[in-house]
């Protein structure tokens, strides 16, 4: 009995932020000290959806996150395969290098990169931001994929080869199929990390590239609760959806990610 109460309390706490955002975002004329909103409206929501900045932020953020996820997978896959399956000299060093971005704060990375990209003409471009986002995402994708590779049995590939399959066929029908769960998790991480980047986008985008975190930050500093509520909802919607869909895979693989340390 007590346990179920705790369970429901836990769910309530987890859902609380969402409820908070909905309450503020969709209410009107809700002033202190009313404990609950009494009048509802979708006008704030409507305005946000028609606001060009919000739409640009949504579009750019989504575009960047998707590109980053794909690129991240592409780059991480070969690296992860080698790290997971082979032993070689300097393996420790490679791991160290790969995990360095998780230790160096985005602040320092962003500042230094800002200067470099200014010189390369990449500052303020989507491409530049995509590149910058790769830095925090690659460690996670490499690690996720390499743990899967560590448990991967190459013999399946050898069998397929013996049965006459071409390398391309092997790759698509054997390798990718077997790696699908961890590919999903890796994509999820890359997407989430890129989607929620604030500092890197700000420093590299230089104010020309707007994503939802940047808008949310501005709204939070401004203080109109309705706007904050709506912006927050827009911001958490994709992550919540993506996590809901991949929840099962995550439960299985989530712990390994924590264990990278």
């Amino acid at each position: 009995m007590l346990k179920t109460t705790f369970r429901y309390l836990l769910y309530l706490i987890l859902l609380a932020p969402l409820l908070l955002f909905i309450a503020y975002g969709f209410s009107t004329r809700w002033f202190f000290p009313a404990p609950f909103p009494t009048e509802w409206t979708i006008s704030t929501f409507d305005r946000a959806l028609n606001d060009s900045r919000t739409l640009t932020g949504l579009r750019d953020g989504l575009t960047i996150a998707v590109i980053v996820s794909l690129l991240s997978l592409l780059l991480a896959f070969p690296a992860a395969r080698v790290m997971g399956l082979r032993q070689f000299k300097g393996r420790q060093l490679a791991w160290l290098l790969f995990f360095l971005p998780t230790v160096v704060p985005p602040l320092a990375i962003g500042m230094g990169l800002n200067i470099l990209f200014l010189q390369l003409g990449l500052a303020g471009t989507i491409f530049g931001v995509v590149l910058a986002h790769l830095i925090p995402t690659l460690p996670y994708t490499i690690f996720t994929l390499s743990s899967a590779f560590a448990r991967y049995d190459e013999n399946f590939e050898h069998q397929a080869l013996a049965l006459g399959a071409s390398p391309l066929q092997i790759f698509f029908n054997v390798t990718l199929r077997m790696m699908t769960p961890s590919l999903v998790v890796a994509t999820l991480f890359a997407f989430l990390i890129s989607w929620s980047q604030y500092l890197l986008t700000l420093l590299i985008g230089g104010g020309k590239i707007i994503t939802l975190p940047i808008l949310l930050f501005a709204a939070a500093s401004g203080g109109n609760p309705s706007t904050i509520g709506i912006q927050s909802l827009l911001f958490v919607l994709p992550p919540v959806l993506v996590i809901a869909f991949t929840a099962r895979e995550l439960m299985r693989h989530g712990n390994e990610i924590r264990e990278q340390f």
Partner: protein
Amino acid sequence: MLGASLLYAIAESLGIISVIGQSDVSFRAYRAALATDSEFWVSLAFSLWVSMTATLLASAFALLVAVWLNHHRTQSDTLALNWNLAFPHLVFATALILFLSQSGLLARWAASLGLITSTDQFPVLVRDRYGIGIILHYTIKEIPFLALIVLAVLRSQPIGYDVVAQNLGANRWQRLHYITIPQVAPALLSGSLLVFGFIFSSYEVPAILGVGYPRALPVLALRFFLDPDLRARSEGMVISLIITAVVMLVAVVSLRLERRKDE
């Protein structure tokens, strides 16, 4: 790219700002930033205070949560952590503002219960000078992460120890103190160090939940970096590099602990 960015950061801290053609290497920025009257020290103290308190609180609660969960087995904490992922720090900080500000939801509930009559009677919990909001945020946010670490250790331990102790008459707190804590200490410490480093070096949350003075160290660094006076950028770089050095040091120690645990 990472290496290049660090190199450029160091270069600029030493005074080479190509944008305005300044290229005389000097330690001027270092001296300015570390001067005894510079805001650096105040921010450093503030950041240390916030990071340590939040880390300690999060660890303590994570330990309790993990022990409790270990006795009541379900998948719920993995679920909680995954759900936690959907709410990045920025959004959670925003939620805290809506909830804890003087005209926020908690204040309204207090008013409707008759506890207060005006907004300024409600304590300043966010955007406050002591970093209470920031500490609260990070404590709550990092508990799932640390709890999972502890849980992983607990679940891999042979249950024998605990049962034997119970048989020998040890009560819950004694078991916690003499058995559980030594078991999880290395992993928890290692994880806590990482959390500390993360909190110490993050910008978004202190920027939203903090005030103009004292500022968290990363906020100070960015302020300098974005200063219209381009020469101030060097100072921002200096602070940023110091933050990086601290975090890397902490990470190295954490790794060493991790390795020792496996021996």
